[in-house]
């Protein structure tokens, strides 16, 4: 039997993780330093090394799935294309004025992010389309030509076009697009009607501009990667992870790179989703904690929860999601991730009011935590975990870095325990709990803030530090089950293997549900579905492999926020509209705890279609049982660990994952190559068939 391999590649700022999964369940993993000057190089070199170690070759690779930060880095570092923007006269500054709001109160030093298109590269055309779509002032082709010429004379590398109310009538935008394509056939063009045919000029302009801004960058990167793979004799096709958790072909990503901007963190959530489906878990909360940040998301009934917009470079939540205005607004569906600035490197300190605080400042990788012994003097969360005995005091998992536990303890004693007047273990435990409580805010923002009770969910933890905190966080939240997947430190790359091809389409379509013209509604939805089907067919998904899922955003007439509900298959008739009204009312009640009376008019706000390209029976067709090829290290001896003032220090067993084939009661520490998992007293750990650690109480 020939074994085909599917490859997941996740690029982070420091490491590039590569996971190969064979159709027989064999796993090979590789972690190498990212090649920051040219990310494609590390991928090709990493694969070549794997081939050398395993005897595999490019011909054994069936498909490469890739999560990349190339596009988001271009935005964060302002290294995108020199972009020109054409917009309606009178509205030249929509992009720069933004929404006026800033993300921090009382901050005189606040600086707005620089617009991605400088004012002089923003040109206007004298035209006007009304909210109804009627042309009020026709676009003069000579005017449009003059503005395009002016931008070409400025040697722009991409052009974005966004005119007022183009979602209702794209004629003028299309005229400008044709002019650009005629005058500069190779120049990337991003047209708002094609990118985001939805109402709200700032959101649409910003999204269209971001797309244009990264188009040449992503195209260049994908060309380089393809070339490298070809030279390494890897003919397999390349699929990119999108911010929404679905895959798209590299061709589609080149056209609409706005969809792959938050590609990085999506892989782990999608992997968690696949697991929730296979184990029939109705709800899971994912918790991904690394060195500097922690992220949470939810999967309900097998579906990842998505947000309709987010800010690129918006940074971590500052306590609340109410404060917007940071970063660059991108209105494309994305996995709804809440992020807080808490990681292993977060600093532990005492504020002027005498309160113990964690982060948001981080020791980073240099000098790093005190225990790294590289000059760091400020205690960190990782130092707390060392003092508590959770992390092996001799060396970092994998044995690569020697640790100095005495230094960590001394720093805690001096900088935290003494000023607070408590013993050092208590201080370190407090730091551990407060870090957990900060991260709980991320979990609350994806659960309780949306009317979901975390106790109905399982906590799915990964990332280098996730398994250290998961059990304690679950306890605080009243949750009763924690799941730790195999290779938790590599899980973002692993998760890529579980994704399906997915394309999202939406369109503003404001109609009162009781006054909607059914023919018109059906035509609009059918048009989006056709678009989705055509895209899937171009990628080789037809018949049963191409699945269309519809949804609708609704609100009570007069509200300014909406909620999305699924739309059943079949033609839209009166009965279905009544069904949608009721579904909206129920979702409103569920999310906010109240709903209006049934006579309150409901408005359809936008219609949405997702096209799914499904192969090998969905979930990416990943085999249920996987077989890691890396041997486990020997289990270290038991060591004392501290679990709070009630229990104090306990001599705690340290085990390997495979030892949990025999279920065991906490306290327990599971040491692995890429992560350490803490099982608290009162909890019980076991292994399931897929080698997930299941911790329950």
């Amino acid at each position: 039997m020939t074994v085909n391999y599917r490859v997941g590649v996740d690029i982070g700022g420091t490491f590039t993780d590569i996971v190969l999964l064979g159709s027989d369940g064999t796993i090979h993993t590789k972690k190498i330093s990212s090649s920051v000057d040219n990310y494609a190089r590390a991928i090709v070199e990493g694969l070549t090394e794997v081939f050398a170690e395993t005897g595999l070759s490019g011909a054994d690779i069936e498909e490469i799935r890739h999560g990349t930060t190339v596009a988001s880095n271009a935005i964060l570092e302002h290294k995108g294309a020199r972009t020109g923007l054409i917009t309606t006269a009178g509205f030249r500054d929509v992009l720069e004025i933004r929404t006026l709001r800033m993300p921090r109160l009382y901050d005189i030093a606040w600086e707005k992010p620089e617009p991605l298109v400088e004012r002089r590269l923003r040109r206007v055309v004298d035209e006007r389309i009304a909210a109804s779509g009627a042309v009020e002032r026709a676009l003069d082709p000579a005017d449009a030509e003059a503005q395009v010429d002016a931008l070409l004379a400025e040697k722009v590398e991409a052009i974005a076009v966004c005119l007022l109310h183009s979602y209702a009538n794209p004629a003028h935008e299309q005229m400008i697009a044709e002019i650009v394509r005629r005058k500069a056939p190779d120049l990337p063009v991003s047209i708002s009607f094609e990118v985001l045919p939805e109402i709200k000029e700032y959101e649409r302009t910003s999204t269209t501009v971001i797309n244009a801004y990264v188009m040449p960058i992503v195209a260049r990167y994908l060309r380089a990667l393809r070339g490298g793979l070809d030279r390494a004799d890897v003919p397999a096709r390349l699929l990119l992870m999108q911010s929404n958790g679905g895959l798209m072909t590299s061709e589609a990503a080149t056209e609409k790179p706005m969809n792959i901007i938050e590609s990085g963190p999506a892989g782990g959530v999608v992997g968690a989703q696949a697991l929730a489906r296979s184990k029939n878990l109705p709800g899971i909360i994912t918790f991904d904690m690394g060195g500097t940040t922690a992220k949470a998301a939810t999967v309900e009934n097998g579906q990842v929860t998505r947000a309709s917009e987010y800010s690129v470079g918006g940074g971590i939540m500052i306590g609340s999601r109410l404060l917007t205005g940071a970063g660059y607004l991108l209105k494309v569906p994305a996995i709804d991730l809440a992020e807080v600035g808490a990681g292993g490197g977060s600093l532990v300190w005492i504020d002027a009011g005498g309160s113990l605080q964690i982060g948001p400042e981080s020791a980073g990788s240099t000098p790093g935590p005190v225990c790294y012994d590289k000059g760091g003097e400020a205690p960190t969360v990782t130092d707390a975990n060392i003092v508590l005995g959770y992390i092996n005091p001799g060396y970092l998992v994998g044995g690569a870095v020697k640790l100095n536990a005495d230094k960590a303890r001394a720093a805690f004693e001096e900088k935290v325990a003494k000023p607070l007047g408590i013993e050092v273990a208590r201080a370190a435990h407090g730091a551990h709990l407060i870090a957990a409580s900060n991260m709980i805010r991320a979990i609350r923002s994806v659960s309780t803030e949306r009317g979901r009770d975390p106790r109905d969910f399982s906590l799915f933890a990964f990332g280098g530090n996730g398994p250290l905190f998961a059990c304690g966080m679950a306890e605080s939240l009243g949750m009763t089950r924690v799941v730790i997947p195999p290779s938790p430190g590599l899980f973002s790359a692993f998760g890529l293997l579980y994704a399906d091809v997915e394309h999202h389409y939406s369109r503003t379509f404001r109609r009162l549900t009781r006054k909607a013209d059914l023919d018109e509604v059906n035509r609009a939805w059918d048009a989006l579905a056709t678009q989705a089907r055509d895209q899937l067919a171009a990628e080789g998904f037809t018949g049963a492999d191409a699945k269309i899922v519809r949804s609708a955003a609704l609100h009570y007439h007069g509200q300014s926020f909406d909620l999305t509900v699924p739309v059943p298959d079949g033609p839209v008739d009166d009965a279905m509209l009544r069904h949608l009204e009721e579904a909206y009312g129920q979702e409103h009640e569920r999310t906010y705890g109240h709903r209006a009376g049934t006579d309150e008019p409901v408005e359809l706000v936008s219609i949405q279609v997702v096209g799914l390209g499904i192969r090998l029976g969905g979930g990416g067709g990943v085999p249920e049982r996987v077989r890691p090829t890396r041997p486990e290290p020997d289990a270290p001896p038991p060591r004392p660990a501290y679990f709070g003032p009630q229990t104090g220090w306990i001599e705690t067993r340290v085990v390997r994952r495979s030892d949990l084939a025999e279920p065991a009661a906490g306290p327990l520490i599971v040491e692995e190559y890429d992560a350490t998992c803490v099982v608290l007293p009162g909890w019980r750990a076991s292994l399931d068939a897929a080698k997930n650690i299941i911790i329950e109480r």
Partner: protein
Amino acid sequence: MAESRDPIAFELFKNAIFSIADEMALTVFRTTYSGVLKDNMDYSTGFADANGKLVAQGLTLPGHLGSIPTAMESIMRHFAHDMREGDVFIMNDPFDGGMHLPDIFVFKPLYHEGRRMAFAATVCHHTDVGGRVAGSNASDSTEIYAEGLRIPPLRFYDAGKRNETVVAFIEKNVRLPVQVFGDLRAQLAACHIAEKQFAELVARYGPDQVEAYMVETVDYAERLTRAALSKLPDGQWSFEDWIDDDGVDYGKPIRLFVTLTKKGDHMLVDWTGTSPQVKGAINNTLSFTKAAAYTGVRSVLPAGIPNNEGVFRAIEVVCPPGTVGNGVLPAACAARGLTGFRMTDCVFGALAMMLPDKVYAAGDGGNTGISIGGYYSNRKPFIYVDFTCGAWGARPWADGLDGNSHMFANMASHSIEVTEAEHPIQLLAYEFVADKAGAGKFRGGVPFRRDYRFLEEEGVLQVRSDRRTHRPFGLYGGSPGQPSENYLNPDGANETLPSKLTMTIRKGDVFRHVLAGAGGWGDPLERDPAQVLKDVRNELLSPAKARADYGVIVDTRTWTVDAGASELARAEIRRSRGWTTTPVVQWTDAAPAAQAAE
């Protein structure tokens, strides 16, 4: 026994209680009907202890910082001894704890086994509460009785049962009852969320410990505030500013005068010397005047101090009754937002005297309120309410921001496309205007204009703007910004309108508002010529103005600065303006020679 000094458990509790206040705020945000709430964030949520002391306030509107305690006091005065589980209280009366009539407060006492332990509090700006003008925010009302429905502290729910009398009175006295009750539902939902989560806290920590921690949360904020105040210099600083007029007595300026006295860990903000209350509807309640002071002072303190009673203990605010900062009956106050913004700017002016390298020059003066209301031909009402501001004063280290909300109200602009889809209004322009920002080593923020075309047969336009005769001041050599402007039909008759007005408009009329430009900071002749060139290339500054204000000569063919010619031009300006010392505050253009060069 409660272990009230456990620093770790306390930090965990504090995280939890502030996340409840924020979650209440999110609940309002997501379920509101009104753009004023969602986009302008003109609402607040909070959490008070059993005695009504504010323990935590959600992160929304700085302008509401003093509001909940004052309203709480009123509720306690009326109901402290007549309160039971399931009660909900409602009020908006500015002369009994409220701020202005559109701000309706909803409070819910929270109980544990029959013992009152806390209050959930919300306040929201409602789109309309009746009165003589749609939107209930006219600046030219001269007594509270014209401004709309005055709700004294009342029981909205009596032991869980809705008070239908209150509901009926509200319903018959507002123009858009569906929106008002939709937003009241949002307020109730926020209280409900608070109740649920507070019960979980009590279950975890026990009632005694929760009470002890609420006290400690307030003490903690006080310690942080006092520690930060201690690091500021001691002394006394005063600042004076003027509102152009109240829109009733046209041309009669209104004095704002503040004195900061900082000693040790205490700050006194004293408004004695501020003008008597005025006829127009811009009189503040004391609570709003306090919020202005807190906003200014907090902006020079480190971030991360929680919002509660503890902050207010360390920052004392005094304002004599009967002044524009503390109106008494029958003062009209619907449009008092203006005074709140300007008192904030006045506090910043005094702080700039105290901390010259930390505080900005004057911005555009806070938001301009524009509302357009009337009836469609089918007699259904429409009300469009827009508040807009956006130019920050220059800072001692950087230019003022272009297109950023005022510190007092972190609001967002409405989408133009949504406005046009929902109202009989078309916007013809929303863009920056060149040559309006005050010059300086760091220039003031660039203002924008908004042009509104009215599409219905007839409507009433109301405008509340200012900074027309008293321009945004520049600091330490920086020039003042250009005044705000209002026009009717700019491409036709182009009639200049006053800064505050209520008038009838008809189909096709175009109203243009240009914000005031913000003040500059530092000597304009010290500005980096490359920065001047950048503004000229971006058409935010004309070549003529670059020359007149900055002595920078730009060659617009090559887009370069003529260094030699600029050197000469700067020398000429320096000579002719004849400064012996750098002017600390500038209200008017101080360089006659520069004007002559234009």
